[in-house]
């Protein structure tokens, strides 16, 4: 049982980081627009890198932008924060290491 609370603490910290953009989007309409535009640009550039400058890029980007940016923006922002900011920059490992060092074991 010892140390079990650390699991919930770490999960809580990572969840809080993931939920942060959704909270910011609810708090401020300007931030909501900025985050949505950033997500749309990321999706469009990603699709254009695959298909090039043609009509297929526009169609697929439109579908993805409607679903991910307009319909489920909070989810997309949370996933983006987790998969492209928290994990690749090793910020989660840093948070885990810090919490483990501060609270220790037993």
């Amino acid at each position: 049982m010892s140390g079990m609370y650390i699991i919930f603490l770490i999960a809580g910290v990572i969840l809080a980081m993931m939920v942060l953009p959704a909270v910011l989007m609810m708090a401020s309409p300007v931030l909501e627009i900025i985050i949505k535009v950033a997500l749309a640009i990321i999706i469009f550039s990603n699709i254009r890198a695959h298909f090039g400058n043609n009509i297929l890029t526009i169609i697929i980007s439109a579908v993805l932008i409607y679903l991910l940016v307009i319909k489920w923006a909070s989810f997309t922002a949370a996933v983006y924060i987790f998969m492209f900011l928290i994990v690749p920059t090793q910020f989660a490992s840093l948070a885990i290491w810090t919490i483990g060092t501060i609270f220790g074991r037993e």
Partner: protein
Amino acid sequence: MVLQTTGYLFTEFFSDMTLVLKIFVLLSIWDFVKQRIGNNFLAAIILIGAAWFILFDMFWFFGGIYILIMLGMLGVSNLLIDFYFVGGGSAIKGLLRKVGIIRGGKMSRPPGQPPKIESPVSSAVDLQKRQQQLRRNQSPATKWGRR
């Protein structure tokens, strides 16, 4: 009413995310075929065949595989390893014991024997505690060396 609305939302979300996942899988197939075969008729045939098989016939299998590969490529496995090392196994074991997946209490050892090091060092605090424990368990002969 609330349950119905929640169920509807979940179904809608699941179907939307399935479509998004299918589009990303299609992008991966497209890249794979274009890189290896190029822009010709054979590439189009293989693309259509692979897309039909992966996206419509066996998507229940390839969708999960695609998610696992993406998570692995982005380094989520490192996160899990870090997560395990923080607890040194004890936190995970405690959770599993509470849920009922594993049974038993703390590991017992014979009296007088030093505790086994059962997991890698997870933090500076852990390292310091282990060093203190080892120092306490050392006999004078081994502590000062043989003469």
